[in-house]
């Protein structure tokens, strides 16, 4: 289980968000969000539609640029470098290098349709990390076995159900040996009967100690596997705390109202 070995030193901020601001024109989507995530933590971000939670994970992955202040991954500033007293934006090559340390799972799976399941999972290690094709294949088979799809290696994504596609997408992200896995509503596009199989894979990762940030609408799931719950509304963090406690005894009216609506 080489993908899951966590570093020996606990309590290190692997991800650090400092007053993050994101605007679309005059619309402020993320409003001064600060968040420190330690290694091995599983953070569930919940909140109503349009609260900015998906945008937040896209910002962490630099799929969106932020307008302020800073995000650090393992102590490294994302997207910029210090040049004397100034900050200079990184080029696409450096940003690509930083992205390799984060795994991303999208709501719509977004597998590569022209590649088989196995090729999808091999693509990152073979093309980006520079692993040999043989190593990448072995690794892909191993990961596909872990998400329960060992018999689908030669299938094309179009032949799979949504739940199976999402499990391939998780294996594809894991193949990059990311420091943090980001999930953007991984079960929102699935038929209800397929949600369980994806959540059980995510739950296995949580048990194995993978650091994860999960944007989700599945409150029961968040309560079960998350170490921390972050409730966002209107681009701000309204409340956060240990999952069980926060979801059972919300301190703010807004979280209480939200929970009563969705549960």
């Amino acid at each position, binding site marked *: 289980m080489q993908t899951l070995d966590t570093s020996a030193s606990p309590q290190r901020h692997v991800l650090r968000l400092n007053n993050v601001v994101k605007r679309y024109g005059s619309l402020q989507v993320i409003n001064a969000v600060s968040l420190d995530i330690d290694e091995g933590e599983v953070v569930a971000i919940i909140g109503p539609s349009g609260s900015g939670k998906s945008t937040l994970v896209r910002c962490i992955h630099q799929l969106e640029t932020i307008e302020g202040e800073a995000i650090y991954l393992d102590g490294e500033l994302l997207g910029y470098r210090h040049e004397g007293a100034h900050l200079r934006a990184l080029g696409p090559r450096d940003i690509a290098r930083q992205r390799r340390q984060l795994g991303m799972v999208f709501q719509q799976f977004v597998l590569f349709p*022209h590649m088989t399941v196995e090729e999808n999972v091999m693509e990152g290690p073979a093309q980006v990390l520079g692993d040999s094709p043989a190593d990448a294949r072995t690794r892909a088979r191993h990961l596909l076995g872990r998400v329960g799809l060992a018999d689908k290696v030669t299938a094309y994504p179009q*032949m799979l159900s949504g739940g199976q596609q999402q499990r391939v997408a998780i294996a594809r992200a894991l193949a990059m040996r990311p420091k943090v896995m980001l999930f953007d509503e991984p079960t929102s596009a699935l038929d209800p009967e397929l949600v369980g199989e994806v959540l059980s894979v995510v739950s296995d990762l949580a048990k194995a100690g993978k650091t994860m940030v999960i944007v989700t609408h599945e409150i029961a799931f968040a309560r079960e596997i998350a170490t921390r719950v972050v409730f966002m509304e209107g681009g701000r963090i309204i409340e956060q705390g240990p999952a069980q406690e926060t979801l059972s005894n919300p301190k703010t009216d807004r979280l209480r109202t939200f929970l009563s609506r969705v549960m």
Partner: protein
Amino acid sequence: MGPESDQGSRTTAQSLECEVSTMMQGAMAISSTLAPRLSETPGDSTDVATARHRTSPLRWCVTVLLVLMALQVVYFMFTNPRFEWAVVGKYLFSANVLQGLGTTLLLTVVAMVVGTVIGTIAALALLSDFKPGRVAAQTYLWAFRGTPLLIQLIFWYNLAYLVPKITLGVPFMAPFAEWSTNAVITPFLAALLGLGLAEGAYMTEIVRAGLSSVDTRQHDAARALGMTPAKAFFRIIFPQAMRFIIPPTGNQVIGMAKATALVSVIAMNDLLHSVQIIYNRTYEIVPLLLVAVFWYLAVITLLYAFQSRLERYYSKGHRRDTTEVTPASAHT
């Protein structure tokens, strides 16, 4: 009603047929009320799988008409002595004609390659957020799609009139090197420039449409794997765009194979020019044009077969027949 009520699926093109069949149904409805109603007895063995397919009488008429026309054409071609088939046979494989065919093939391939490369670069410029690049690409499209290919070819052929010397160097400074334009712009290069640059303009639109057809989320997924923009383009975006690029490009190649005939005006010895040289001497115009027609059709038939193979290759993962392996729902 019996099996005669089974009409099969209708298409709009069959609307006329439907009218006819409605009339026939009326007539049959009367006859079926008189006939014993076997199909309505309980527990019968009615099975539509055993039904006979009906062919509309209109289709019978059209089929007969088409066969008659085909026979007429064949009869005309083999009995009209002015086709001079013996002359066609004499020149079909003559060295000059085959050499012309070679030139036509070479020009088609090289001009298409040049056009595709230019078209891909211009399409990327059009789709980029770099405004000078977009403006340059749009200007190129406007100029090269907006003027007749024949004029462009003559223009390149006569480039020496405008620019007697081709120089290499920094603008407005003394050049590092220079060549006589007439020595550089051979008829072949003029043909290549003319065909390639014009083709590039059309390919730009085809490639742009192909690239735009790829789901934007695929860009996100490629970037999320830590790919550089170039890697994402060549590994993820372009292979998917090919599925949309190949069919119209096939059309372009066929158009190009025929457009090369235009280079005969700049003294390029292509297929058309090679037969023109012969019939200018022998006055056997019709049979020699038939020789050219035969080879153009042969080339295009080959290209067509090649296109089908290429289309099949780039549609992997999208083919209908591969979806049957797993009965699970393919989309959610």
